[in-house]
């Protein structure tokens, strides 16, 4: 288990069972039971959306839409699966729709990529800017495995479950994605 992210450490003894219990309460008519799920997963989902979309506000909207759509289709959730993997697929569709819409607009100058939100306060170094630009230059397929591994903190198995691929394929895809990043960021190699 990749335990880099604190959100996973705060999930309790049996997070999947806890998630299923909250969902059951929602379906029984307690919409407030959805709030713990939002609080538990909003940060990793938002961070993945941010790395997929590159814009703070769009990532926020995509995350909100994903949670609302998840609530609307809660009866289609399979309790034997992990909630994160299920809602991630909803989020990914939201992000892909957002990216498709963005293509029809004027492309942003590279120096404004991922700018315009509080994220800039934390990511204001030249190296980080170069990294953000390199991430946005990756294909969506590569970007999402990077985001799920490094910004959601998922294990290979968890990424595989979310993407519907084998863990070995996840490793291979991650390797290729990092290699592509390494090529683009060769000036920053340490």
């Amino acid at each position, binding site marked *: 288990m990749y335990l880099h992210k604190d959100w996973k450490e705060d999930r309790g003894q049996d997070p999947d069972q806890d998630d299923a219990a909250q969902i059951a309460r929602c379906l029984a008519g307690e919409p407030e039971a*959805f709030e713990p799920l939002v609080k538990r997963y909003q940060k990793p989902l938002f961070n993945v959306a941010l790395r997929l979309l590159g814009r703070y506000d769009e990532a*926020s909207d995509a995350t909100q839409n994903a949670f*609302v759509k998840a609530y609307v289709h809660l009866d289609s959730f399979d309790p034997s699966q992990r909630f994160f993997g299920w809602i991630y697929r909803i989020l990914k569709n939201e992000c892909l729709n957002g990216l498709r819409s963005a293509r029809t607009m004027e492309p942003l100058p590279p120096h404004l990529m991922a700018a315009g939100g509080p994220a800039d306060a934390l990511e204001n170094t030249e190296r980080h800017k170069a990294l953000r630009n390199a991430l946005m230059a990756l294909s969506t397929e590569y970007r999402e495995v990077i985001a799920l591994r490094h910004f959601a903190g998922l294990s290979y198995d968890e990424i595989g479950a979310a993407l519907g691929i084998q863990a070995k394929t996840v*490793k291979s895809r991650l390797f290729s994605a*990092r290699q592509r990043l390494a090529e683009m960021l060769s000036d920053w190699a340490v």
Partner: protein
Amino acid sequence: MSDRRTTNGDRNWDEHGWVSRLLDGLGDVEPPRDLTRRIMAQIAEEYTYLWPSWRAGGGQTMVRSIFWGVAAVAAVVLISFAVTGYPPVSKGIEGTIGAAKRYQASQIQNDDVKLQDPELQAFFQSDAFHKLTTDKAAREALTSKEFRQAVADPAVRAALAVPAIQQALANPAIQQALSNSAVAQALANQAVQEALMSKAVQEALAIQGIQGVQAALAIQSVQEALAHQPAAVQAAIASQAFQSALASRAFQAALANQAFLAALSSQAFQAALATPAFMHAVGSTAFVQALSSAAFVNALSSSAVTQALAAQSLSQ
């Protein structure tokens, strides 16, 4: 493209460690502080009524929906008839409904029931509807199939537009009664529904008005009886004799009698209601005939009688 492998032949997946460190160095970005609030607010505003749903499948959820749906519809229909006097009562009891007319809005006749969507809209925009939608049980009822069928009924739609009915629906006693599962279960019983739709019961409700309905539904002993002896209560309500009793002047007078209502609310009467024998007696012709006697009602209202009713011997 490099394809470095470890000594055992596997690919070294941790290649480009500096890239991983760089990525990890970006750190987490905090989502907007109000994101949770925004999500929950959108759900509350747009999808509060979504669950439980028929889509959720069978089991307890569907059963609850049916119960609450029927309860809400039955309450709406009951109150509608009680307040509007629709359908009009027979000539035979015209003299007895004069007192009840103070509860009535303008009388709705058969020919008057020409419904317009604005009438329904008026109800949906009322404070009463708002209060109902903030109540969990009512929310479930309002999303039910039965409610949708009810609001499609011309008489119900007309009744919903009447301010007095809206006021009644906003009444805590009515809402409390509706939140009682025993009441809901009883109202879901077909025999009870048929009884409630009977002319005799409707006439009785028209006479007793909202206060009578409230009094009957709000009495804890009645609710307890429904919970413990639902079949007996349903049988009693469905019996012709009990319906006749409801329509009788004596019973109307009894319900207007504070001592009688107090007796109904007593622990002793509650215990009596829990016994099958007593419920059987309530539905009997003899009991109904006895109710037409003021002396019998007065006797029922006395603490001595209610205690006697609760005695074990009565239930045997």
